[in-house]
């Protein structure tokens, strides 16, 4: 093969390997399920003319961005759980963003003071319960370890970020000894091994396997709206939902959010997309399409969620929760929660 043909072949390989770069685009790496955010991204492209390329990565998102380093195509990294957001900052994969639009739209408690992460939606950790149970109005997270619930509680794995974040919040409020005692009590109350997903809690309550459990608020909307299919509608309607609080505190919430990647090749478009996601229109879509609580004050919550009653958000700082995530995970091991 002659040299020029070799060069041509190599060029061809490069063309195969590298996606063609359009003029106006933004690359989004996300752990959020594509189906959930696709409507938002399509609306953004329609409004701005900026094409959004996506890759949906679950575990390993931060590792991939870190390995790609300065050559990474990532402009925005989007994820759920405050611990995952802070990890991106801690690993130096995020860059600070100053944007009056973002600062006006997102309350200070839901973003980094230096603009390295922004929450875009919140979800509450609520209780699903048997509809026949009465007097659940003042239910607290602490209550769930009470022996009166013995053999009546269903939960997903204690190692799942939604639960570790709650346990981390408990740690911040009550310290390690009390949290451990609470976890042991909760473990003793389990009706079945911790596992499955939040919706399995609802299904197991409908199946009489347990009386009460914890799940995220948006699943209530997804199930009750019938968007998850007729089976799940039955589960959603077969449970009552209450918003538990910490004793003397509020309801535990977690966030979904995003950072602008440190080496973002399309930084301006990345900021544009973030600003769009914090706009009235996109926040309304978060509420309507995903049944999440918008971060922007004044944007309407979906009626399926307002029906659950007013949400009083617990004031434990998100950063504190993220900082205690690992300790929470180790406690889960220590008490053998998932065993």
């Amino acid at each position, binding site marked *: 093969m002659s040299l020029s043909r070799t060069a041509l072949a190599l060029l061809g390989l490069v063309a195969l390997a590298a996606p063609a770069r359009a003029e106006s685009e933004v690359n989004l790496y996300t752990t959020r399920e594509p189906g959930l955010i696709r409507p938002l991204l399509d609306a953004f492209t329609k409004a701005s003319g900026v094409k959004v*390329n996506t890759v949906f990565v679950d575990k390993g998102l931060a590792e991939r961005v870190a390995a790609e380093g300065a050559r990474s195509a990532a402009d925005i990294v989007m994820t759920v759980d405050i611990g995952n957001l802070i990890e991106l900052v801690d690993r130096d994969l995020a860059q600070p963003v100053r944007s009056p639009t973002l600062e006006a739209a997102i309350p200070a408690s839901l973003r980094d003071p230096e603009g390295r992460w922004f929450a875009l939606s919140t979800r509450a950790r609520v209780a699903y319960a048997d509809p026949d149970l009465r007097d659940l109005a003042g239910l607290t997270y602490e209550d769930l370890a009470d022996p009166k619930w013995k053999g009546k509680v269903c939960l997903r794995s204690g190692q799942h970020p939604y639960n570790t974040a709650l346990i981390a919040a408990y740690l911040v409020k009550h310290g390690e000894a009390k949290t451990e005692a609470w976890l042991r009590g909760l473990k003793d109350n389990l009706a*079945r091994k911790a596992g499955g997903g939040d919706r399995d809690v609802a299904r197991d309550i409908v199946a009489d396997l347990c009386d009460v459990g914890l799940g995220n608020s948006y699943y209530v909307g997804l199930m009750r709206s019938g968007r*998850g299919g007729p089976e799940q509608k039955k589960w959603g309607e077969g449970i009552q939902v209450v918003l538990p609080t910490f004793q003397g505190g509020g309801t535990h919430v977690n966030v979904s959010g995003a950072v602008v990647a440190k080496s973002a090749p399309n930084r301006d478009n990345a900021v544009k997309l973030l600003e769009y996601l914090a706009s009235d229109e996109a926040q309304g879509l978060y509420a309507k399409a995903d049944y999440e609580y918008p971060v922007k004050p004044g944007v309407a919550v979906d009626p399926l969620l307002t029906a659950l009653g007013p949400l009083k958000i617990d004031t434990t700082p998100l950063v504190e929760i993220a900082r205690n995530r690992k300790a929470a995970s180790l406690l889960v091991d220590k008490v053998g929660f998932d065993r």
Partner: protein
Amino acid sequence: MPSRPPAALRRMGLPARLRSPAAGRPHGPWLRAWTLAAGLTALLVLAPVASLAVEALQGSGGLWPHLLAHVLPPSLVETGLLLAGVGAVVVVVGTGAAWLVAAYEFPGRRLLDWALLLPLAVPTYIGAYAYLDLLHPVGPVQSAVRALLGYARPRDLILPDLRSLPGCILLLGFVLYPYVYLPTRALFLMQSATLVEAGRSLGAGPGAVFLRVALPLARPAIALGASLALLEALNDIGAAEFLGVRTLTVSIYDTWVNRSDLAGAAGLALVMLAACLGLIAVERRARRGRGYAGAAQRPRRMSRTILAGPAALVALGAGLVPVALGFLAPASYLAVEAVRRLHVAGLSGAILSESLNTLLYAGLATLVATTLGLLVAAGPRLLGGRWRGMLLRCATFGYAIPGAILAIGLLPPLAALDGLLDGASRALTGLPLAAMGLGTGAALVYAYVVRFLAVTTGSSEAGLARVPRSLGDAARVLGRGPAGALAQVHLPLTWPAVLGGALLVFVDCVKELPATLILRPLNVETLATHLYGEAARGTYEDGAVAALLIVAVGLLPVALLLRVSTPKA
């Protein structure tokens, strides 16, 4: 030995230097070429392992006391029980089914012959989703049972929960047994009739023939199949997590993701790898010194015992059980869900491109893995030597590491390669080079190859082992070089095994999820990632179409598998 080959052999037209009759003696250029290629392959496989080792060493090790006290003991016990259970199920079901279709003739046997392979097309995580829906107290099966027995509420009739260790064992066992069935069946079919007849003439009944003649002879096939099935079970994350079984692999994931200790997770993965290799070595050692090669002449096939009446019905019924549990139940559930969804939402346009992506990456990876697998396996056989056998063992590393951890191990080498190529391009042309590794399809193909190379080397090796050494030696005495012997003697005799391995890898690639999720390029979805996206938001029924397509894409290779693993009469 003659110094010059006879004229008849010279007419074969080989260059003089390849006509050396010294059979078994390696030839310089061939040796060098093979060494280079096999060395590169080993490097490809070892790169992620080495980078995981580096990662593990970077950790402070501060979490190890915690892991040893609270995490490892229970997860080791649970993993041990899971593997023992799955091992028992796959060996009993796989070998029993293989003997049934190989030794007996009854109405429906031909159907069973291929239907028994169908569970191969069902990824374990899809099986778990489908079965939980089917068997849940509010699912169709228990609802029907309650209606039949006149119970009003689920609490009136509490049945065992699938979400348990026994549930997980049965599920994995009945989905994974074809890994044993496939090679064992092929081996029973190739079994020489003389041995079986010798057994019978010495007074052994059908049971004794099976236990004392057929089973010991089939041991390499059973061992190969069971080790593949067990490694699949060990590395499964979807089904175990879903069913609440805390295996070692689940612990590795949790250590990485929740205990925020990638170094610890890498360390655990390497310990697990070492344990797997140890077990494989023990099995090999136990088999050492026994020959399994067939006779040089095509053996006369064992005749099937003809069953009639009730015996035939029992045989058919017994054979249908694994098919129903491993395939029919989950697949028909998916089909019903898919039809429902299509009714409501129609077919997503993306599904076509997702199918094409799936076929493209799985196809490319299969091609590469098969070539490399044959190459690595042929080395020790054709060129001899102990260290070539070591290279062969290296090839199996990827199969013993959980997919996502392997993908994380691949990130640094890929990034380094990209940096190297970019640097070279800048130095030579002054232009930067777009990434050729990370974030491209190449990374995905690479990951699949490393992950599944064990399957292709294993099947190539098993195929080569059945070629009597005398045939290869004869070819060499007749003047063929190692490559000539491979092409003209070994390949024609082993291609069914090689192709069988290739098809298995193809199906495995189509089903692969964790590495695909981490490594695929922007805007690329495969059927598996699509399904995972739906499952992640809990609407996995919306992914029923994709799930069914994964199963369907797996069916064609499965049908082909059966053809190639059936020796011609």
